[in-house]
């Protein structure tokens, strides 16, 4: 599904070129749950942003379903954002002026879904995440974990194939973090491809595959131990 070849990302200053990513090769298949790990400044978020079409690589190839997505027009990018991928952020990034319900509904509006259908879809998700009672609250009135749940709900309401999560648990206490990871795992079990960036070893273990990034270079890419175990079984 995702195919990255020799991806470089660098910034030029007067006398030198600083690499954020260097010769990154990565292939992600449908249904995978990939955790990208690495210290601060290793280029994890940049890689995720490139995959999410929010940032462009300085060199290399990137294709989705064998179609190159470099040099896409603004309109085509918007189309991918609307129909193909969803984002979750460390700081939740909910729209503060909107209620839980409206936040979740927003992507559907941009997608042009009819009002009746939107109602049904949002209601379904609220139900699934046990948040029906909170639908008219504003983000500030929720706990961090609940806000992130809303973030996930908003990311998946458009039924994307790919879910990109940038440190989804970074701002959360561990119990709330676990709840979020369980939710992601469940989504993955239903067939959604997920790529997450994380600092946390324990939460990285939720992924089926763990990629280690250091100074912009992939140092390790292996299947998860537990995953191996289940394969061996």
């Amino acid at each position, binding site marked *: 599904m995702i195919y990255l070849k020799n991806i470089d990302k660098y910034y030029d200053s007067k006398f030198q070129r600083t690499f954020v990513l260097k010769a990154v090769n990565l292939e992600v298949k449908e249904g995978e749950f990939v955790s990208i790990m690495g210290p601060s400044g290793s280029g994890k978020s940049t890689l995720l942003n490139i995959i999410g079409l*929010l940032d462009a690589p300085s060199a290399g190839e990137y294709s989705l379903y064998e179609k190159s997505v470099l040099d896409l027009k603004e309109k085509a990018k918007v189309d991918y*954002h609307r129909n193909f991928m969803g984002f979750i952020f460390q700081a939740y990034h909910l729209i503060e002026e*909107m209620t839980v319900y409206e936040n979740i509904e927003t992507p559907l509006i941009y997608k042009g879904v009819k009002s009746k259908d939107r109602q049904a879809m949002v209601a379904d998700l609220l139900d699934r995440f046990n948040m029906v009672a909170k639908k008219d609250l504003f983000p500030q009135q929720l706990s961090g974990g609940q806000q992130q749940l809303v973030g996930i709900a908003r990311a998946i309401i458009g039924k994307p194939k790919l879910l990109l999560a940038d440190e989804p648990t970074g701002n959360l206490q561990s119990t709330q973090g676990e709840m979020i990871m369980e939710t992601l795992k469940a989504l993955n079990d239903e067939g959604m491809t997920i790529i997450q960036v994380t600092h946390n070893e324990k939460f990285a273990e939720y992924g089926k595959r763990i990629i280690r990034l250091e100074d912009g270079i992939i140092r390790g890419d292996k299947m998860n131990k537990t995953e191996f175990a289940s394969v061996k079984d």
Partner: protein
Amino acid sequence: MFRNYLKSALRFLKRNKLFAGINILGLSLALAATFIILLFVINELSYNNGYKNRKQIYRVLVNYVDYSGTEAGTDDEAPYALSKSIKDEFSQVKYVARVRNMKGFQIKLKDEFIPIRDAVGSDSQIFKIFDIPVDGDQDNIHDNPNSIVLSRKQAQKFFPDENPVGKEIVALVNDKEEVFLVKGVFDDIRVNSTLQADCFINSTLPLERLNKKFKDENVETNWRSNYWITWLLLNKNADVASLDKQLRELEKKVYGEKDRYDFSVQNLTEVYLNSQEINSSASQGSMKNIRIFSAIALLIIIVAAFNYIILSTAVSTGRAKEIGIRKTNGASIQSIREQLLNESVVLAMLALPIALLLAWQGKPYAEDLFQTKLLIINSNIAIYAVVYMSLTLLIGLASGLYTSSILSKLKVISILKNSAQTGKRKSRVRFALIVVQLVIFCSFISSTLIIRSQYQYALEKDPGYRNKDILFIDMGKSSPDSKAFINSIKSYPNVISAGGAVEALPRLGSLPYNYEHFQDKSKKVSVEILGVDYDFIETMGIHLLEGRSFSREFSSDPEHSFIINEAAVKALGITEPIGKPIDNGKIIGVVKDFNVHSLHSNIPPLMFVVSDAFVLQVAIHHKPGTLKNLLPLIEAEWKKIAPDQPFNFKTVEEYNKEIYTAEKNLSVIISIFTLFSLLIASLGLFGLTLFITTSRTKEIGVKKVLGSSGSTIIYSFLKENFIPVFIASALSVPITWYFMNKWLSNFSYKIPISLWFFAVAFIVAIAVVGATVFFHSWKASRINPVEALRYE
């Protein structure tokens, strides 16, 4: 989609109350001011626009030609007989009607006579020309001298809830009671129309009155008695040039080769706004005022729209995150732009009702200011609504356009990384907008100062005659015995002297005659004549340079002696003027030049003629401070000579002030709008500094930790904000210079535009900006660094 935008816009405003409040307040103030101005402008421009045939309706003008062949003025009143000639001989004219208001016309209601303001003597065709709907027999309305057609309003007054057609009323006309038959009822004429009528009566009635007043003139056939406003309806596609030719032939026929009057026609669309040069009792507008006011409105709107842009780009950091999120959720640049545009339109629309309320409250003050009634005219309501709505929309769109195009282009990734360069403290565009606002503000201030100074100068300049301790008494039209009046006044000890003239000084009218140049006989020089009595020159303190003044001791003085001014000596090219023959007499004296007219015009060549019979204004020179005691005495004398005439008096200062009313009004209007622009712009600046100080809390905290003192921080804020003031006041100099020079060119005597006008504007701007910025920066300078740094 729209609901979603609206919701987030309203909620954003709710969360940013200060920003929204400042913006809405600024917009409302600007809109209210503009609405009032537009009310005036729309009313002025819509004048006479209600007539469907207006392009074909014309008014006959009469141009007077004096003996020397130069045009001496234009009237809108023509001879009675003209209308018949036009009807008979001019094939291009479809309908013609002559109109004259009937003075003293009263209708009896119960036992009381009620005066009718606009009782119009006319012909039936007036209804066809102006297409006025009439109930009743339209064609023969004026067959009988005693028929009348009432307006709906009058009909309702005299015949409540019944049909008056065919009924009789009693009216007082030409001081006689007569019975009139109501022949019809016409739809009320709009207020914004040159033709005004409460009822129409037969044109023979005012004719009778005129004949009575001027016993020897047969007004109906006399081609030199011009009393009738004559309206024409031309055929479609009529040729006005050929009409002019026909008028020339008519003039030749009725006046002979050496004609005294030139007829011309003026289209109805020109009548209201383009008749400054025409002597007319009809109300008139001024295109110049419309232009000045529209320009002021435009400037105010610019200030307000810039405010919006400055503020909303500043607070955009708050919005940037939301925009980033929306983009990752699939919003396109287009939809973000729409959203932001919607938001500014919503904001502007929120200001609309407040602006209407403010405008409504401010209307009475504006009426004082503009010296006109600001009517809300029913037939214009649709226009007001459309103009106001579209103006509000336009401001919303215009101010949202820039903001939205900036914000919608922000890179999502940088926003989400919190490193976005949004809400930059240093934005070049915002800087430019602030400078433009300040330029407008500074130009307003210096213009006000210049206009005020010129006004003061006009009042205080030594005109060359006594400009205090003089009282002017208006003798009225019936010219009572002025000689006896003056003589009795002179006997009071507090009266130094008294004398009369045709007009008070500075004089408003002029009566020029042409005289031959003394050296070059072929050259004609126009000299103004001023009729005075024996004491006027002395009373007014006009300085006699050589020769003598008029004196009763010389019996030849009234017809054969003349006093001229220096300008006349020069213009006529006279050397040794005393004793030189002129007209049918000789020059007996020369006076020093003085301002005969207002400061708008140069001192003309002038010739005094003496006679006790010219006196229409009496000037009384009294001892300083005695006016209060003197007035009742003079009034008592007045009652003796003219018991039934009103006693009208003015001091020379009051008289002078009246002449410069237009200048005074303009200075007041501009100062009011200076205040407005000040208010709006400082609101914006207040919001902007508030935003900047809060966004710089961290920086200030760090600076303080590093040892910066509070005053250095205040200083750095002030410095930053004074730079645009410097630039703006420099830029305002040439702009103000240009426009004020243009305005001052209306005056022959004017003040120089000196630098202090601009210096004052600069100081005021610095003071305003300083005060606005100081408050926030002082607060910022007192930030506890620990608090500031814990912030994130």
